[in-house]
Each structure stands twice: as structure tokens, then as C-alpha cells.
């Protein structure tokens, strides 16, 4: 065999004496790289299909809504309800992308390489959570922002729904934080990506089904006082409750939700639990 590298070997070794950035910048770089990956950038064509397809589906109601506003001068798609309306699509996105962010590093044992650098377990987890949260925020904020721009351009009779739009943006932040922490928590427990996808989607379907079922049973048996509590077992209704409590948007469910303060506390508790779970899991993986 010839040795083509022999020639190149003659170039002497050069030391690096340029800048060495701190932990924060490395964390940022990891977050940015992860975020790009969530939307398929820098990955194979196959990996790009799913996120782009889901983004396109998320934009469909926007397109329809702008069309109706332009042609029929009617406002049909309130901003605060967008996420609940599209919850299945968002859940599929979460299920497809959370395992992508964490499973390969566990499965192919890349984690020790990160941790042998000036990056801590917390930095790693923060970068991954932030990447997914930003991606989810984008998934929600882009369609409603386009619709809002459309609404301003079409210039419907009456004032624009600015407060609703801003409330929905605030809600998008809540959705992003809750869903990313739950998604990463569930996905990080298995190094197998396919299993991770299944676990996240099963979690969503389970909570959605249980929530609907309990709500139906409780309301039909006259327990209207507790029925709203069943509703917020579904993470989307939980955030919707908090969104209406914090930003004054109209709730999706006419029958009413549990008190906003309780929902806020539950939301915080779920996020804290999920993030703690992820940190503990990675502390264990690191040793």
C-alpha cells in the first residue's frame, strides 16, 4: 500500500496560541449547533424532511387565515388558541426532535468527550434544553407572527388583535419551556432514538386522552367543580390556563379552568421536576 499521508506529515506541528473562549461560549456553540440540527441544517436530506414538513403544516392555518382575512374580511383564527389547535403537530415535532438532541450522545458515548472539556453537565443540559425551547418557540411564534403581519396589512375593520398576539407570544414562551423540559427529560432516559420518539409521543397521547376522558366523566356525573382540574392534565391546556391567567387571553375551554395561580404553580413544578430529572440523569451518566 502506498502511504499518501507521508508527504503531508512533513508539515511540522504548529501550536495554537489564539483565543480560548470560556465555558459560556462553548455552551452557546453547542446550543446553536443543536438548534440548527433540530431543523435539519448540517444534516442529511432525510433529517431535514420531518422538521420542515411540520413547520409547513404549522403554517397552513396561517395561510388560510390570511386568505380569509384578505378575501372575506373576516378574522377566524385567534392567536392565543393557535397552540392548542395545532397541539398534535407540536407534539409530533417534540417527539421527533427531543431524542435527536440527546440520544446519539448517549448511544455513541460522545458525552465523555464533552465532559472532558471545560463544559459541565449543567452546561450541556442547558444548551440542549435551550436549543429545543428556541426551536419550539419558533415553531409557534413564526406562524402567529406572519398572521399578525398579515392582519396589519389586510387592515380589517376594527383595531388589530395586538393584545391577543402579544399574549400568545408570551404563551409560546411557556409552551417552549414546558415542552422542551418534558421532551428532553423523557428522551434522555433512553439512548435509543426510536424508543425516545415513541415515549414522547405516548406521553402526549396518554395525557391528552386521560385529560379528555376524566373531563367527560366528571362533567357528566355533575362534578363540575373538579372537572376543570382534569383538563390541565393535558400540557397544552395547562399552558393555556396559565396563559390566560398571566396575559388575560381568552381560554380555549368555555367551561372554565382551575384557578390561574394553581395552574402557574403546577406548571413551575412540572418544569422543575423535568429539569431536575434531566440533571440527575446526566450526573449519573457522567460518573
Amino acid at each position, binding site marked *: 500500500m502506498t502511504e*499518501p*499521508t507521508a508527504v*503531508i*506529515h512533513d*508539515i*511540522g*506541528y*504548529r*501550536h*495554537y496560541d*489564539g*483565543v*480560548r*473562549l*470560556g*465555558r459560556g*461560549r*462553548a455552551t452557546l*456553540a*453547542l446550543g446553536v*449547533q443543536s438548534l440548527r440540527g433540530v431543523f435539519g441544517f*448540517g*444534516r*442529511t436530506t432525510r433529517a431535514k424532511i420531518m422538521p420542515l414538513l411540520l413547520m409547513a403544516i404549522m403554517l397552513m392555518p396561517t395561510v388560510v387565515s390570511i386568505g380569509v382575512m384578505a378575501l372575506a374580511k373576516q378574522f377566524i383564527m385567534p392567536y392565543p388558541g393557535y397552540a392548542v389547535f395545532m397541539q398534535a403537530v407540536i407534539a409530533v415535532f417534540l417527539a421527533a426532535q427531543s431524542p435527536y438532541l440527546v440520544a*446519539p*450522545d448517549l448511544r*455513541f*458515548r*460522545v458525552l*465523555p*468527550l*464533552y*465532559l*472532558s*472539556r*471545560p*463544559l*459541565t453537565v449543567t452546561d450541556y443540559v442547558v444548551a440542549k434544553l435551550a436549543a429545543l425551547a428556541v426551536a419550539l418557540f419558533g415553531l409557534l411564534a413564526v406562524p402567529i407572527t406572519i398572521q399578525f403581519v398579515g392582519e396589519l396589512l389586510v387592515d380589517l375593520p376594527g383595531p388589530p388583535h395586538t393584545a391577543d398576539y402579544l399574549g400568545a407570544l408570551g404563551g409560546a414562551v411557556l409552551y417552549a419551556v414546558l415542552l422542551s423540559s418534558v421532551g428532553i427529560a423523557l428522551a434522555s432516559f433512553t439512548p435509543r432514538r426510536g424508543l425516545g420518539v415513541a415515549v414522547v409521543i405516548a406521553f402526549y397521547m396518554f395525557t391528552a386522552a386521560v385529560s379528555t376522558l376524566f373531563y367527560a366523566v366528571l362533567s357528566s356525573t355533575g362534578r363540575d367543580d373538579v372537572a376543570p382540574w382534569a383538563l390541565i392534565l393535558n400540557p397544552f391546556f395547562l399552558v393555556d390556563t396559565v396563559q390566560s391567567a398571566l396575559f388575560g387571553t381568552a381560554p380555549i375551554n368555555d367551561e372554565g379552568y382551575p384557578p390561574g395561580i394553581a395552574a402557574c404553580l403546577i406548571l413551575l413544578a412540572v418544569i422543575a421536576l423535568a429539569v431536575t430529572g434531566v440533571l440527575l440523569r446526566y450526573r449519573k451518566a*457522567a*460518573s
Partner: protein
Amino acid sequence: MTASATPCFATEGLTKRFPRVTALDDLTVAAGTGVTGLVGANGAGKSTLIKILLGLLPPTSGRASVLGLDTATQGLEIRRAVGYMPEHDCLPPDISATEFVVHMAQMSGLPRTAARERAADTLRHVGLDEERYRPMGGYSTGMRQRVKLAQALVHDPRLVFLDEPTNGLDPQGRDDMLALIRRVGTEFGIDVLVTSHLLGELERVCDHVIVIDGGRLLRSSAIREFTRAEQTIAVEVEEGQRRLAERLAALGETVAAQGRLLTVQVSADDPGRTHDAVRDAVCDLGLSLLRLEQRRGRIEDVFKEPVA
């Protein structure tokens, strides 16, 4: 030795107990600059020592320092200054070596442009050519080991920990990897701690060798003393083993009988003297020689030594 000036690493009574095993047992050892070999059988505690030195695993008791930094409190500073090549596979299959090494350089704090340059340079230095643009899933073991080495070197560390870099390589690949490690230590000027369970392969590239067994220090010495002390000549004669042994002992050689075999310790100061003495003694006594072989230090001999 310059070891005392700036030890690459030093441990003091380092002990690590896992629920079932004691991986490191009161280990006190230090290594100077250059290439240091860490030799021990499976489960000797080599990888555990490296993880403690990286500041990733807290010891049960004792202390350790790397480049003068305390592993218990200055882990981040240590990890900024060192590189680590794990013993296990750690390469995601669907991205190319270039992308991977660039990313790892960024994770070590290099800005993106610098990371690209360093990655290209480092991959060239470890001998990865056009293949570096292909996904790593299709790489041979030799190529994978090179990428693992490249990611440990890409940020130009002062010291690298290489955990069994020759693992899984064929004899040619092993020789290439060992030559590369030697270059890292000499030409690149990066201090190296390299582990293996074969003393034989490390003595070719190391300046200093540390041997551990069951988490205990068996021996730590410069390679020259090591091979000298371990070098023996094995002689087997048809008859007159006793006479030969007496003659050699009278000449001042250190002789031991192992069954039908005589082992003669090669003089550390004057190896030629021992060889001459054996040759002359066999001739003078008119013995018929069945076997005469030079024995290099091997890990088994080291393990035997405290007993002998």
C-alpha cells in the same frame, strides 16, 4: 529527572473504592514530562486513574494534581489544558470526521474559524486524508482511533491522556499509532500519558513507565532503568547447569535457576559484560548449549518481581 520540577501529574495515597471493588489502592505516583506509559492488566485501575485526573471522578481518599492543579477543586482548569482519548468508541456515525473534530474544538473554546483550521491540521497530522469528509460510520478501526486521537489534540493541549489507543488495531496499525504517539510527545511537544496492558508495546515509545496492578503501584521508573533491570539472558545447557551458575556467580553476575533454565540478569552498567561472561563460561566449561535467548522486560516479569 525533571519530574520534580513540573510533574504532569502526581497522586498521593489515591484510593478509589466502588461498591464491590477497590479500583485504586493508596496510589502514590508522579510523572514528569515526555511520554509516560501506564501499564496494567484489565481492571488494574488505569481508566479510573485517568477519570480522577480529569477531575470527573472524586477519589474516595487521597489527592491528585495535574499540571500543578488540584483535581478536586480545579477540574475545569485541568480540562482546559488537557486532552482525553477514551478507551471506548465515541464517534457518532452519521457525521464526518471534519465536522466532528471542528465541533469538539469549539467545545474546547476555540472560535469557529480557528476550530476549522486546527481540525484540518490535526486530522492531517494523525494521517486522515480524503476520508475525513465521509461519515465516520464507515471508518475502519484504525481510522476511528485516529479521529479519537485528533479530537484529543485539536485544541493543542499541554498534556493528553490516551486510554488504550492501540486497542483493536492490527500489528501495522499498532505500530503506526505508537509512532504517532511518539511524535505527539517529541515533535508536537505535548506530554502524554498512555495506557496499555502490554509493557512491550509501551517501552518503545515511553520515557517513563508506571505499572499498576489491582490499583496498587508495582513500579514507576524511567524506561531505561526499566528495560535494563528487566533484561535477562536465559540459558539452557544439556548438563552442568550447576557449574555454569557457579562460574557466572563467581564472575559477579546475578543468576537464578528456573527449572532447567538459568536466567542471568544483564548488567545495567555494562550489558556487554554479561553477554561475554555467559559466552565465555559456556565455552570454558565445554557445555553444550541448548538455548540462549535475550529476554526483554515483560509485564509478567514485573508482576513476579516483588516475590522474587
